[in-house]
């Protein structure tokens, strides 16, 4: 099978499984809604304060949502020893990683498209900067968190305390990505700075970790 066919086969499987159960999407959606409500109650911000803190809260909600979704993502493969079957198959492991990351990227983007308007309503957001740049920023920052998250979820799959370990690895390593995402979002919302530098940094981060993930995934998958 050609590389493209392998990739689309994995991708199709991911979407089909998610469509049948809708576990990841529903879990993430409800969770980010809860974050929006809880933070709004806890801080009770004014309109100006909302603009300053909303960027941080949105990305924290996304990061927690990603952890929830990714803990489930690889767990499916361990039932009925699917992962061992995949390892035996004459297919490129890096493509499985790429398909898993792309599928989760789509799920999380869907989450953002639904939950961002909720945040806008709850926090009375009215962006003062160039809001069209959010459309560029969202995929860049989401991919940065997803590509690392998918990799580390695979890494922590066969460890004790799996659910605990993923955030323990993912949070420290994605601090630069989170910082970039929050700073760029805040810059767009308040309109005081330009988000361009942060978006370039996120792009570099995406490239570096996508390459590292593709190169090292086979090592993690067949770690014995």
């Amino acid at each position, binding site marked *: 099978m050609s590389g493209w066919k392998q990739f689309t086969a994995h991708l199709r499987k991911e979407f089909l499984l998610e469509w049948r159960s809708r576990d990841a999407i529903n879990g993430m959606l409800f969770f980010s809604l809860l974050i929006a409500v809880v933070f709004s109650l806890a801080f009770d911000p004014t309109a100006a304060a909302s603009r300053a803190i909303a960027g941080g809260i949105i990305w924290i909600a996304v990061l927690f949502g990603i952890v929830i979704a990714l803990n489930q993502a690889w767990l499916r493969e361990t039932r009925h020893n699917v992962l061992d079957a995949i390892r035996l198959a004459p297919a490129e492991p890096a493509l499985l990683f790429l398909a898993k990351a792309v599928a989760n990227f789509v799920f999380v983007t869907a989450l953002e498209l639904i939950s961002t308007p909720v945040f806008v309503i709850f926090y009375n957001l009215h962006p003062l900067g160039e809001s069209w740049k959010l459309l560029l920023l969202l995929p860049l920052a989401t991919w940065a968190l997803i590509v690392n998250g998918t990799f580390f979820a695979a*890494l922590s799959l066969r*460890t004790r*305390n799996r659910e605990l370990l993923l955030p323990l690895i993912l949070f420290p*390593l994605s601090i*630069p990505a989170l910082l970039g995402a929050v700073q760029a979002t805040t810059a767009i919302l308040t309109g005081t700075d330009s988000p361009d530098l942060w978006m370039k940094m996120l792009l570099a981060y995406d490239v570096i970790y996508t390459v590292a993930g593709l190169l090292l995934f086979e090592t993690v998958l067949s*770690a014995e």
Partner: protein
Amino acid sequence: MKKLFYPWLALTIALAIYGFMQAWFIAPTEATMGNIQRIFYYHFAAGNLLCLFFFANFVASIGYLIVRRSNPTRAQKFDAFALANAEMGTVFCATVLVQGPLWARPVWGIWWTWDERLTSTLVLFLIYVAYLMVRRFAVAGQTQTLAAVLAIFGFLDVPIVYMSIRWWRTQHPAPVIFGGPNSGLDPRIWTAAFWNLGAWLAWGILLVGVRYYGLGREQARQQRQAAATREPAWEAAR
């Protein structure tokens, strides 16, 4: 290797004593900060050495991944070396994070500020604590490979962390500006700083050596155990 222990220990103690004398009696008292500045001799040493030991961890992790199939014996050595260096680097990192506030409180008037160097060091500390956590949580047999991969990911992150936090703080300048060790310092300050660097380097190498030796024995013990009880262990792992 074992024969080296006592001579090296003696060298470390001698260097530590000489460095201590340099730092406390020979180097002049700093004009504005007073004696509190003397913590710099230890801070400088630990701050530089943590980079060295984390770099050694990175190199050893790559070495492990390269030879883990072709030469398992050497791979085990690389892994032991990587772990010993990561632990030593984390110790130095923690030291720096404790010394910094102790100095900053009387000089800056605050314990902590989100300055670029402070924040980068803290993030570095968090990354390597996560690395040590993975080593603890992973299932036996996979620990080494997973840890080596994570070490590479962690080290790749270091320049990104440093640059991003630098930009973050350039946009919003830190409340307190630190003059830093600028030129025109008394040369005795540098002499004391470098003797202490040497002393703590010797100490770090000593501890890494002891830990490496101990890990080697631990690996050998586990292999003997595994060989003795191969079948039941395989059943238990399922």
